[in-house]
């Protein structure tokens, strides 16, 4: 059983997205089962492919400023802001532990 509550809890922390219910957890289990079919393929000596454009060189451009100065536009879509800052709630506070936070995984 590789999908333990610890793993699920860890994923919720990493993704900052919750499983919500048994269906969510089952969805993951099915996804893993589906992905396991990959292991049927023999990939001995095969290099992983990052991009179909791998045979081309990524190019550089001149380090010239061509656009910007759009602070007002960019701030328009933010809900909480002060002057030219986006306002975030206090950081460095980890997500509550499994027992303490509201998650379906509690009591699993």
């Amino acid at each position, binding site marked *: 059983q590789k999908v333990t509550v610890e793993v699920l809890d860890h994923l919720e922390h990493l993704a900052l997205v*919750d499983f919500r219910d048994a269906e969510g957890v089952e969805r*993951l289990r099915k996804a893993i089962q*589906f992905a396991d079919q990959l292991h049927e*393929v023999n*990939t001995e000596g*095969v290099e992983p492919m990052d*991009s179909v454009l791998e045979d081309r060189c990524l190019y550089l451009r001149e380090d010239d400023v061509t656009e910007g100065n759009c602070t007002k536009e960019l701030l328009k879509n933010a809900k909480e802001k002060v002057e030219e800052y986006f306002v975030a*709630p206090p950081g460095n*506070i980890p*997500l509550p532990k499994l027992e303490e936070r509201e998650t379906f995984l509690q009591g699993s």
Partner: protein
Amino acid sequence: ALKGGSRFQVSAALTEGRVAPTELCQRCLSLIKSTKFLNAYITVAEETALKQAEESEKRYRRGQPLGVLDGIPIAVKDNFNTAGIETTCASNMLKGYISPYNATVVQRLLDQGAVLLGKTNLDEFAMGSGSTDGVFGPVRNPWSYSRQYKEKSVPKSHSEDEESNWVITGGSSGGSAAAVSSFTCFAALGSDTGGSTRNPAAHCGVVGLKPTYGLISRHGLIPLVNSMDVPGILTRCVDDAAVVLGSLAGHDPKDSTTIQDNFKPFEVPNLTDVSKLSIGIPKEYHAPGLSSEILALWSKAADLFKNAGAKVIEVSLPHTRYSIVCYHVLCTAEVASNMARFDGLEYGHRSDMNKSTESMYAATRREGFNDVVRGRILSGNYFLLKQNYENYFIKAQKVRRLIANDFVKVFGSGVDILLTPTTLSDAVPYMEFIKEDNRTRSAQDDILTQAVNMAGLPAINVPTGLSERGLPLGLQFIGQSFQEKQLLTVAKWFEKQVKFPMIQLEVKRHDHSAFQHQKSASFS
């Protein structure tokens, strides 16, 4: 079926003054209102569209149109940024988000004078194959309201039919496909990551072009899978697709994944002699679940080429069946990364939860994303865990190379173009489609289109015929990298041969007069 050179028929009408851009725009806007039940549009930009049409009219009066696209009404899938217009990706996460900029492809269309009518509906964040999973509801296939479909459906009870019998558009660019199919615009932008332009094109009876990866800029296209996404083009004929391609393709300094080669826009040649052509029929595309109708159509198409003198041979793409699994892992992994930007701080939905950044992000994402999106994020994170990275993500990347190599081998053996089905069957009724979950459906429906995205190749759906139920069936041509001209040449030849029928849409006009027959695709 439209004749004429590589320009919209209506373009001629505009140039000759037979119809004015504002009139054209009004007609389309009116038709959008009459076809509101299709739910193809999320946002209709009526005011700005009319302004654009007015500007176009001024240019035509001066005898200085910007080009073939000047004054042509178009629609854009709602995952492309459009300055000053809401861009939602059919998600609560971006409801109310007004783009501060235009995606490069949108800008290029506007620079040519195209009139942007609105943003079309899709599956949330382009995840899905039905255009049924967005927060604004599902898109209805216009063919559900066609005489061709109604004639073939077994009448149950009188009016209850239409409500329960309507079929899906396919997805995820269903809104764009429906918009083009129902004549509310002349071309629409979609996106294609696993088949999202070609699939709804097949179900809605329109041309759906997926260009080579790297040909068209993704700048401003809200990304799903960075290594596979491409903007897609939906039109009613191959010539029109070439015109739109001509205005969009080419290097964009804002997208480093666009190639720097010079792109030359072209008019699709009128091929008369196919004897030098070699068409490959990949046997693995005879997939389980392929309807006998489509199989027959595919066979007929192969014969069409053979009888016209082309070389038609069976080929093999042995890793085809792993494409979906491979996609599943790579897609969820990239999604896990791409969706991380939605945290409520700079744009989009923000939860009221204020205890800490992490809890705010978590609440925002819980409130903003639907089950499908959340599911893919979690799966993706699983495959990217240290203990899984090698066995899933890297493994999938290796399988990707095998899939891409399959195509290289086949094209290297002298085959010019591949001919395959686009979908397993004609469009299914919505009530039937929703019986299976999104992932299952996507896995089933993407099987014929997905491998093309793995390899980054160009491909096009050409509407070919009608099914027994009176619904469109399309076939897919797959070309070689950056050989769009050859691909479209063959597609146009085929289009001419099959003469796909025009939809006989029965729509009540906006002024509530009796049912009207929408005959012409051109307004000339």
